């Protein structure tokens, strides 16, 4: 079982793009320890060379023709997907400057 401590919780939260308060770090560390302690049951199963099952159905990726379809537009002819976006500029999503 992995060693779970507050450093690990902070590292994982950073990977997941989450800010945590110190109280949250303490709480989630304790709860992750309990949950992973329980999940450790899995180490008792002899899985041998069993192929992992990532999906419940044996499905194949369906292929289709690469045909261009128009995006839905609103009553003003603007792309519908922009209508309720948090911030837009021209025909795009606006984000703050992130390159210095």
């Amino acid at each position, binding site marked *: 079982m*992995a060693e779970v401590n507050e450093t*690990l*919780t902070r590292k*994982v*939260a*950073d*990977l*997941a*793009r*989450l*800010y*945590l308060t110190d109280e*949250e770090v303490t709480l*989630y560390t304790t*709860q*992750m320890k*309990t*949950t*992973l302690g*329980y*999940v*450790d*049951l*899995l*180490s008792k*199963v002899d*899985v041998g060379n*069993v*192929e*992992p*099952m*990532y*999906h*419940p*159905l044996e*499905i194949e*990726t*369906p292929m*289709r023709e690469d045909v261009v379809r128009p995006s*839905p537009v609103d009553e003003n002819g603007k792309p*519908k*997907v922009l*209508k*309720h*976006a*948090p*911030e837009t500029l021209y025909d795009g*999503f606006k*984000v*703050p400057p*992130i390159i210095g």
Partner: protein
Amino acid sequence: MNFHKISEIHDAFDAKKLSSTELTKDYLNRIKASKHNAYLTVLEDRALKQAKQADELIAKAGKAPRDTHPLVGIPLGIKDLLTMDGVRTTSASKMLENYIPPYTATAVDRLEKAGAISLGKLNMDEFAMGGSNENSAFGPVMHPTHDGYVPGGSSGGSATAVGADLCVAALGSDTGGSIRLPASYCGIVGLKPTYGRISRYGLIAFSSSLDQIGPMTKSVEDSALLLQVMAGHDPLDSTTSPKPTESFYAESKKEPDWKNLRIGVPKEYWVQGISPEIEKSVREGLKWFESKGAKLVDISLPHTPYCVSVYYIVAVSEASSNLARIDGVRFGVRHPDSKQVEDIADFYKKIRSNFGPEVKRRIILGTFALSSGYYDAYFRKACQVRRLMKQDFDAAFQKCDVIASPVSPSTAFKIGEKAADPLKMYLNDILTIPANLCGLPGLSVPCGSDAKNLPIGMQLVGPQFQDSRILSLANAFEKGRK
């Protein structure tokens, strides 16, 4: 107006005793007067417009046109993680509290094209993560009949809306039991169809290899009818099955072939922590099947003790990946401070602080399980045990046709009772999780009640794509036990 079945409402339309507009207005009034917190958004004008169109269709045909519009004039509630074009869809999260999607989920679209009316969007656990509906950013949902008790989750708003007659039927989604558990707590019918039977297009994803949309209804035949309308391949969801669909409604009404029916009773499902009242009630139900001529068969699903572990690794891993898209760039809510940011990570982190505590907990665990150095020990290992569980079911279905068990080890509990202990809450799903991991159809049908008069549900699980088999058995049980 308390109808038990959609067919009874259609009969009332035919006899001109009732119009869809009257029925819809009655439900809108009931919703307004209700204190259950089941609805997050009520679509009054839209619903009345749909009801008017339904009444026009009925007037034109002289009766409810069941063949072309099997749900004509029927008011439904929709779990708030299914998108509807132009209708606020929140997934019960602050992250999406103002999200108005530009497209409609295939499942909802098919219901509305069949004549159904959407009364509104139903409360749930945030991003469907929870078993009690206490994790909604918009407050908990009350049990339909027992004040202060949870309705179960995550489709708690759907279960209460059906149980308290705030709609004729509702849509839910089931990732580890989120339809069947609340259905059993609230004394209604809940069906999780075979994986791939109903399109997930427009379902805000929690765990893509486990999620399935399904009906929550007052009767088994209504579940079959809603399934029939929604089922089938969808080019917009490549995981829908290309297999042809069946007449689930007609099939559900067929008498089971009792003499040749073998009902499997897994020995692992009756151990540790099952309430004696639930065990007694479900065993009495099994005796009823026996009295009809079915054979009860002892079976074993030896990897059952590992299912919660497998589930929590698979579900949280897929969730951490799916929820990466909830970043406030293209939709959703931006944090007021997100204009002043140091870098892109700071931008995302500020926005994502709007997730609730259970969602953050699962994103962290999932990110951990997928992270470098831990992937093989957790995610890969869990998926290997998942295959062993599927092999357990394949072997069991050589000996039986259907598997019967309780839905949950306990009946509905009081709000707050399990909230402080996530693991305890997770263990409540032990009997429903296997059907999701293995893609099997499962349903909950009311089977009794405990000393507090809280409902008990029986679960029936079938092999993949044998949804009709469990529906016809449940239908016979529902009728025969009255």
